[in-house]
């Protein structure tokens, strides 16, 4: 089906109208029955909707800006974020945080390092924390989820008990515990702590959608045709189960960044601040929050905007991909 065909456009419009006018179930059903290839048209129409959805566009715009900033941050940052250029101005009592001045538009932090550069370069570590926490969480969840979802039976039961144990601790509390009990705190322990929270969530999600796939017609058909179990899992079940996982990942990116900040706030973050990271900057600004709130407000705003960007993107993706929410 080609998007240039005017008749196809019309059909899509029916879909859309049914979806967006808050129409009734009948409208959806009438429109839905003309879909010949539901899978393709779901993704295609999702993309069509997304393209026009301002919420998605804003979210994606913020995300894109953030990623680009993280990639080029080293180049565009006016100064080295690790060098205390203004250290000699720092006096703990009279001038703990040098203010804005030529070349340093936002001033410096308490070690005389350029605040603007730290904010810019901070995007990099922030992205790293977010992405790796999500990836680790996803990887862990995937191993468990695939084991459970693909094989079912006692494997499923065993894996889900493990997941239950993990899930039995309130999410952030698990992260706190892991970070607090890490032998040597570092960026990695922060990432692991934040990722651990996501493992059971991803595991559940994958298992759920894999189980749904297990009983779906195309998987049964593949089995009936004698496709090997491995191929069934990886070629037929996994790809189709990934939709919700992608959505969840986008949302997790946002929470990872916020959770990392919470760890720093409790003093459980990465103690080494040569490489700036927004959550760490916010956590460490506690000391100055009374007299020099800008030290906290800037990274906080960055975190809020980026988290909002990921959330907006994730939520609109979820809406677009979830056939149920299409009305």
């Amino acid at each position: 089906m080609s998007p240039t065909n005017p008749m196809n456009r019309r059909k899509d419009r029916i879909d859309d109208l049914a979806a967006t006018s808050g129409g009734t179930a009948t409208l959806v059903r009438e429109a839905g029955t003309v879909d010949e290839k539901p899978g393709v048209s779901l993704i295609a129409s999702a993309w069509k909707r997304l393209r026009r959805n301002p919420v998605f566009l804003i979210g994606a715009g913020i995300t894109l800006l953030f990623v680009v900033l993280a990639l080029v941050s080293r180049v565009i940052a006016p100064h080295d974020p690790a060098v205390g250029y203004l250290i000699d101005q720092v006096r703990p009592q009279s001038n703990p945080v040098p203010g804005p001045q030529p070349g340093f538009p936002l001033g410096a932090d308490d070690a005389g390092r350029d605040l603007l550069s730290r904010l810019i370069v901070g995007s990099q570590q922030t992205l790293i924390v977010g992405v790796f926490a999500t990836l680790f969480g996803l990887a862990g969840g995937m191993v468990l989820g695939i084991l459970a979802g693909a094989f079912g039976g006692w494997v499923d039961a065993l894996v889900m008990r493990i997941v239950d144990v993990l899930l039995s601790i309130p999410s952030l509390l698990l992260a706190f515990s892991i970070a607090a009990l890490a032998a040597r705190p570092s960026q990695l322990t922060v990432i692991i702590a934040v990722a651990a929270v996501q493992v059971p969530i991803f595991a559940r999600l994958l298992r759920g959608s894999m189980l749904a796939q297990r009983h779906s017609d195309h998987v049964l058909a593949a089995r009936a045709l004698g496709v090997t179990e491995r191929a069934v899992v990886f070629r037929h079940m996994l790809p189709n189960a990934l939709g919700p996982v992608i959505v969840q990942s986008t949302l997790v990116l946002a929470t990872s960044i916020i959770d990392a900040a919470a760890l720093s706030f409790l003093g459980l973050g990465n103690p080494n601040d040569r490489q700036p990271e927004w959550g760490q900057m916010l956590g460490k600004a506690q000391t100055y929050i009374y007299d020099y709130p800008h030290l906290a407000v800037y990274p906080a705003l960055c975190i809020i905007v980026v988290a909002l960007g990921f959330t907006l993107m994730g939520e609109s993706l979820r809406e677009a991909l979830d056939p149920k929410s299409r009305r």
Partner: protein
Amino acid sequence: MARFIIRRLLQMVGVVFVLSLLLFFWLRSLPGGTVSAILGERATPETRAALTKALGLDEPIWVQYWKFLTRALRGEFGVSTGVLPGTDAMTIFLDRLPATIELSFLALLIAVVLAIPLGYVSARRANSPLDSGLVVVSLVGVAVPVFFLAFLLKYQLSVEHNWFPVSGRQDNIGCTRVTNFFVLDGLLTREFDCSASALKHLVLPSVALATIPFAVIYRITRASVLDVLGEDYVRTAESKGLNARVIRGRHVLRNALLPVVTTIGLQTGGLLAGAVLTEQVFNFGGIGNALAVAFQRRDYPVLEVLILAAAAIYVIINLLVDIAYAVIDPRVRTR
């Protein structure tokens, strides 16, 4: 039903047991810990050895675990070494629990009371400016780090304007303690100023703590109401010409609130984690505060008890949610 509850409780015991095992061995494998937390700079090899021996930390780890387990079965979970040295960790947990319950309850109350009506209105007026505005607020609410929000609230309303107390649970006005639920105690002992003071101390922390549950419950309510509004049975109800009130209550809300109940349950469990941050900002003497101190001082017994208790509470809350779900959803109840 009874069998279901018993099975779930047994499962909980299993989960807590496995968790205790994991925690115990993990904690013992860590460097530092109790001995260095107690001795500090003054530690000498002799005092260190003496303390290690006195605390039985030189015994094989499985012996230590066996001792821990037998003590735990007697209700002795070990003595705090950092939060409140010398006090049984379980006692600390029980003493602090009321504070966190008070805080969480109020936070949840605020969240639910605001989120459900707003979520409903939002869904009824989907895509209106009001709806869009509320959705944005809820998304921002999730994006703002809780502790930062808590700090802003404190800074603006307590420090700048002095409308609310900065921290703590109550002014030091000589209140009688009965249950350690300060608001309740004031009512029980007729020291109403105590209740008022406790309430005033609760406002900001609970508002801060309420933001995330509010945002989540609001969004689930909105989505759920939207879903239900599109359901055939609502159209059926409309086709019967029923009153708007009956349709809203009996046909829309009664169905739409089913997923909301689950969400509220999940959020209740999650409040404990938020409470760590909120209680820390407001120096609110609850479990979260104790946990933060225990983290910092490596108070392992307290950590163990608090984490295990948190897990148990979480599981129990989930069980209650399942039961509640069964009670309100006839499809589950009458299966």
